[in-house]
């Protein structure tokens, strides 16, 4: 018998062990560690902040207008006398929630459509990609503005709308990844055996394109966050008095020259979250081996 005392001791791992493995690999590089730490910090903050927020985020107090940071108000107060610290630690909750679910929707429709196009190819693929390209060429912010002004700014509108606009890019990635595997003989083999398209997508393609799509989804998440905050900044995201970084920046930016604290805190909150997600997505890609590999010179 060939090779019975075998050379490979790698045992099959449970999915949980695999996930832990990936996270350990991600955290083993400084950039991945920092990214993960920032992301985890933000998630924990978003979940727990209502319990330890020192003040009421909507309590207006004209007598405390634009107070500089002090031991009482760590980050100072805003133009309505609300505590900036309270509003900052609460300000990521809406953005995180909406964009998280938006990303999942983007992943689902973008991933499935992309795989489908890659699999069927030919004319259908051409037509679908034309349409996707056409949508890509519309400035998304205009389209978003149109949608929210027609349908309102509720969560039920924002999540699918963001999910739709940020899914287009995933279509392309999923399609390209599918194209890479579609020519492989194991797909031809499955086709020749007579498996249905759905079974081929599920069993043969998905395990091979999953990683690429997940990485793209993570990247899209950070972009969506920026996009959502821009909407808030323009007044089309969440409505006051809900604390939200985009909205806070928008409200305080006119007073920046003399009340910088009201603007700095939400900016730090938003940008650190985006950087955190980006670094994490990068480390995720590297841990999965999707990084452009360095080739030998010969």
């Amino acid at each position, binding site marked *: *018998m*060939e*090779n*019975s005392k075998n*050379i*490979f001791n*790698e*045992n*099959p791992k449970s999915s949980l062990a695999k996930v832990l493995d990936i996270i350990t690999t991600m955290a083993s590089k400084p950039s991945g560690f920092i990214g993960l730490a920032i992301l985890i910090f933000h998630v924990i903050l978003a979940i727990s902040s209502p319990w330890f927020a020192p003040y009421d985020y909507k309590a207006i107090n004209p007598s405390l207008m634009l107070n500089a940071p002090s031991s009482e108000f760590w980050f100072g107060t805003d133009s309505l006398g609300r505590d900036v610290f309270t509003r900052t630690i609460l300000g990521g909750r809406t953005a995180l929630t909406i964009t998280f679910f938006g990303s999942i929707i983007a992943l689902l429709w973008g991933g499935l459509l992309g795989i489908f196009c890659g699999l069927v190819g030919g004319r259908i693929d051409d037509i679908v990609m034309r349409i996707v390209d056409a949508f890509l060429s519309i400035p998304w912010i205009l389209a978003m503005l149109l949608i929210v002004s027609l349908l309102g700014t509720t969560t039920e509108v924002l999540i699918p709308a963001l999910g739709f606009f940020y899914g287009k890019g995933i279509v392309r990635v999923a399609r390209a990844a599918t194209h890479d595997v579609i020519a*492989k*003989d*194991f797909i*031809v*083999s*499955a*086709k*020749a*055996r*007579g*498996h249905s398209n759905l079974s081929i997508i599920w*069993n*043969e393609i998905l*395990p*091979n394109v999953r990683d690429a799509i997940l990485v793209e989804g993570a990247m899209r998440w950070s972009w969506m966050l920026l996009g959502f905050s821009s909407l808030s900044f323009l007044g089309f995201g969440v409505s006051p008095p809900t604390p939200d970084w985009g909205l806070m920046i928008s409200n305080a930016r006119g007073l920046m020259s003399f009340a910088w604290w009201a603007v700095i805190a939400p900016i730090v909150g938003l940008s650190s979250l985006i950087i955190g997600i980006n670094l994490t997505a990068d480390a995720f890609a590297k841990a999965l081996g999707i990084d452009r590999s*360095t080739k*030998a*010179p*010969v």
Partner: protein
Amino acid sequence: MKTNIQEIKDLSIGFKSQKGKQISILRNITTNIRKGETVGIVGESGSGKSTLALAMMGYIKHGLFTTRGECLFKSQNLLSLNNKELEEIRGRKIAMIPQNAGQALTPNLKIGYQIEEALRLHTDYSKTEREKKISELLNQVRLPSPKIMALRYPHELSGGQQQRVAVAMALAGNPELLLLDEPTTGLDVTTQAHVLELLKDIAKDTGTSMVYVSHDLGAIAQVCDRVIVMYAGEIVLEGPVRKILKEPIHPYTYGLLKSIPKLSLAGLPDSMPGSQPQPGNIGSGCSFYDRCNFSNDKCKVNVPKLEYISEMDTSVRCFNHSELISITSEQKSKNHLQKEITIDEILDLKDVSISYAKQGIIDQFLNKVTDTNPTVKDINININKGETIALVGESGSGKSTILKSIAGLLKTKDGYIKFDKEKLLSGDLKKRNSEDLRSIQLIFQNPDESLNPNHTVEQILSQPLKLYFGLTGSKLKSSIAELLEKVRLGAFYMSRYPRQLSGGEKQRIAVARAFAARPDIILCDEVTSALDVSVQAAVLDLLQKLKEELGTTYVFVSHDLAVVKAISDRVAVLYQGRLCEIGPSKNVYQFPSHPYTEVLIGAVLEPDPDIKPKLVAEDIVEEKPPEIGCSFQGRCPRIIGDKCRNETPPWQIGDNGNAIRCHIGIEELKIQQSQC
């Protein structure tokens, strides 16, 4: 004695495992390359031959490091030079032709420009000198009309021509040492023979030393003066080419040579059990101990040293080499049971034509293919139950195309394919019923591509079992275990991923997957060409045994005539999608033959330096089959004029049962072919 151009002294190269253990890939290599000599390095994949070749130009792959020893080029240790110093040597004094160099040419730059780049980088010639040199180089590699060639793009050249350009670029800097890594692997048989011929002439004319890395002993036999055989990172045998190939005194080389199918022998070659140990897993004794037929207890614990035997001018690493000296070099091979095939037709290809031409919208609508010159045309083959029929021909001859249409992956343009006498097989996969799909299974060339890398062996084998028989639970598990046993693998392989298997094991899984469907016909597309020779023999043996056990019919596609001869009952020779000759395999390999079969047989490289290939036809590659006349007219060395160009040649039946499609009469062919 000639002077050494390169001396390798006690070289070991290794890496650190994740656990921090030091693992060697090359172990204590000591050898010399003399001036003007061509040295072949052979070994199976993973034996360290490429690592050694790269070290010879001072290059160590990322992640590897030298643990001891040195690599002296003209008494300068390449491994201790910095990049700047190496640049002075690489490309100028030592040049390399990497694997697939021809395909690696930059696609959007003209040939002439790419050669000029090499000249600019590696020489101090002026512009006008360079221009002159380009023509000279193209001439040297025997490309026709260099002036015109220089203006072409790589895709306008054939595979063999591209490889010649790669050779020309390597010669640009007038190297003293030329390293070639599998320079002809992937080329067609005829092209391969021509490129080897060229390399041999260049070595003779320029006096360049060459190091030729290959797993193909046939190619090594043609070009090399001396051979180094590597196994598990060590040199196990080294000596003059004739001694190594004719009197191999190391058990590995002995077994390796026996496992190569040869044209002169009928039946399957002996296979070598087991596979090469992985680096880091080599036992305490001789590294070949597990697979050796000559071993004794001494070998298990003691490591043999490389011993020089002066009367043979050969170094060997084996305690028992003297036993091998006494064995007569006569080779016998297991005759496979040539049982009489009863005429019981299972598959009938009638007037089959297949076209890749893009259909216009109207034709698509009418479901009609219009193409006057289809890729595959007029194929008539009938296949009997339990028979192995082989399709041979060079790349692009339509072998895979025919297999695909039998499998239903391609529509036929004309003609039909009938299964089991009355069932017409639809050209549309979706229209075939599950029973027909199950009856015909495919095995592919490269198991790396045909097994889903993200599935375990269990998942891979359960696909057909679930689909065709609806098996689940413990029934499924036991069927999988049974299949694994059938392909001589243990049940513990179930949880493995393809990347945890060796090449031969992967192909066994692919074989098991095909047999899982309990098919009547298995289509094999170059199933052994991605495997090492010693593994190839074992896989062929497995296929043969399974067939005897289960009565399966094989349609076997291969470009390797010796492999085909070993396994098939009947052979069909294809050129440009047209049949040239078909008949019982023992007769196809005898004269009279179709002129194309003659060319193919002539180009076969035997692992014997005294059998030279006969290069009759040019190694040009035709893009399209000719519209009228004989398909082989463009290259035929026996062409008899306008008749061949204008009329489709008739089928003629020879007295030994093979059918030949040629305008020259059988008797005449016999006379002409017996003259050379």
